[in-house]
């Protein structure tokens, strides 16, 4: 894995017995000796610590300050950034000229700047995209690690080290100190659980991770369980469930497009692909991302073709993410299917030449547990 980048926690992962794999150009832990299934269940029962330092951290500013930067960013995302209060974070997506999704991201208003977290695989393209846009000052943060602490025991574990975090609510962001290190903390994550994401100086990350891991409730969790956790939570994985061919409306992400950016809103449109996206918001999309609960225990994974009936006919869609949901204790999947198919309808996934029934189901598959 000679050409791969390493995060500041690499040696700690190896020490903890992680199995390291290539992911988005980085050498990352896919699992620890506990294994994917138990890591998943541990996160839902107690707290999991994830190294997500491979993700892109970017500071956005503008000569006119945060209000100007927010308005400039609104030209790239169909989201209300200008209305994002100081100390708050919001989910967004970069849209393309055809209304597809270039990446999804989190945007925080940290008072004197916007702080953006983007996917590792897209970060170079995202940063180029931001830099090519007039009116934004773009600083890529390369000297900070990013950790996620997720699960019902996350609050108590973090509060012990960083007094004050417990009062944060879901999607709050704030700055804290820990032994002289500045922590940028958000109450958010990618598991469906309550939890935090913590940006901190890379040279202090191992020490901080060790302090968290001293807590019996906290276990290190790899990318394998991160994927099954987010899948059960109904959260999209870029490059799989959303990409340049899927619009936010098709992806069932319309909730992330506030009224002010929709037709009739004060800042309606003005983002790439607005014609398609506003049209779909008004008239609906022909297909949509749905949850699938396959009958039986055989997982329907990414790429499995979905059919309307048990025999014949052309595929009506494809699974974009799927696997076994350890907390649901059954297989779960996401697919794009014709919007005419209602929740509860039965469709068929073709596995090894056999069509097996699956029910269209609401997401999340496992109830979320955010501290609102």
């Amino acid at each position: 894995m000679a050409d791969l980048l390493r995060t500041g926690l690499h040696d700690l992962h190896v020490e903890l017995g992680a199995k390291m794999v290539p992911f988005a150009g980085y050498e990352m832990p896919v699992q620890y000796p506990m294994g994917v299934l138990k890591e998943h269940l541990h996160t839902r029962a107690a707290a999991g610590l994830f190294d997500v330092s491979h993700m892109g951290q970017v500071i956005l500013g503008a000569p006119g300050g945060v209000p100007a930067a927010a308005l400039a960013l609104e030209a790239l995302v169909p989201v209300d950034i200008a209305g994002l209060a100081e100390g708050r974070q919001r989910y967004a997506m970069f849209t393309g000229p055809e209304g597809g999704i270039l990446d999804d991201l989190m945007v925080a208003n940290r008072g004197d700047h916007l702080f953006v977290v983007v996917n590792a695989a897209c970060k170079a393209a995202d940063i180029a995209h931001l830099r090519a846009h007039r009116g934004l000052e773009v600083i890529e943060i390369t000297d900070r690690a990013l950790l996620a602490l997720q699960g019902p025991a996350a609050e108590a574990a973090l509060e012990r080290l960083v007094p004050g975090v417990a009062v944060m609510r879901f999607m709050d962001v704030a700055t804290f100190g820990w032994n002289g290190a500045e922590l940028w903390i958000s109450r958010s994550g990618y598991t469906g659980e309550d939890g935090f994401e913590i940006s901190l100086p890379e040279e202090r990350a191992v020490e901080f991770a060790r302090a968290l891991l001293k807590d019996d409730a906290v276990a290190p969790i790899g990318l394998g369980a991160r994927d099954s956790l987010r899948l059960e939570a109904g959260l999209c994985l870029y490059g799989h469930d959303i990409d340049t061919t899927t619009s936010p409306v098709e992806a069932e992400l319309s909730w992330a497009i506030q009224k002010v950016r929709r037709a009739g809103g004060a800042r309606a449109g003005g983002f790439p692909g607005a014609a398609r996206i506003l049209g779909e918001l008004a008239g609906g999309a022909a297909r949509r991302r749905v949850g699938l609960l396959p009958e039986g225990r055989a997982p329907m994974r990414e790429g499995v073709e979905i059919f309307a009936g048990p025999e014949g006919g052309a595929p009506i869609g494809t699974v974009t993410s799927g696997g076994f949901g350890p907390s649901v204790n059954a297989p779960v999947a996401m697919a794009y299917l014709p919007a005419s198919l209602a929740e509860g309808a039965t469709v068929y996934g073709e596995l090894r030449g056999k069509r097996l029934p699956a029910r269209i189901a609401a997401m999340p598959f496992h109830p979320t547990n955010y501290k609102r």
Partner: protein
Amino acid sequence: MKYTEDHEWLRVEGDLVVVGITAHASEQLGDVVFVELPEPETVVAKGDEVVVIESVKAASDILAPVDGEIVEINEALVDNPGLVNEDPTGAAWFFKMKVGDMAQLDDFMDEDAYNDLVG
């Protein structure tokens, strides 16, 4: 016990051959969540896909190691696929085969040779 390059183990029990996967294979697969077994009385040829195993990571197959007839399957794995991780060389056998020509087993590895392979 004999071992195949596909990380299966074979144990002779009278005129039957019991087939499972090695501890090394079960570790590589990760947590097993689904097992699909063949119908008993299925006649199979060496190399046929007879069992599907799904782990949290991926799907994989068990191939018939020799020509023969499946005579018994381990139904316990259907209800408790995790047995494959807990006791791969014991309780988690997959199927028993009636094998006409036991000489087919001669070319498979013994334990030392298999351990060298997975080193």
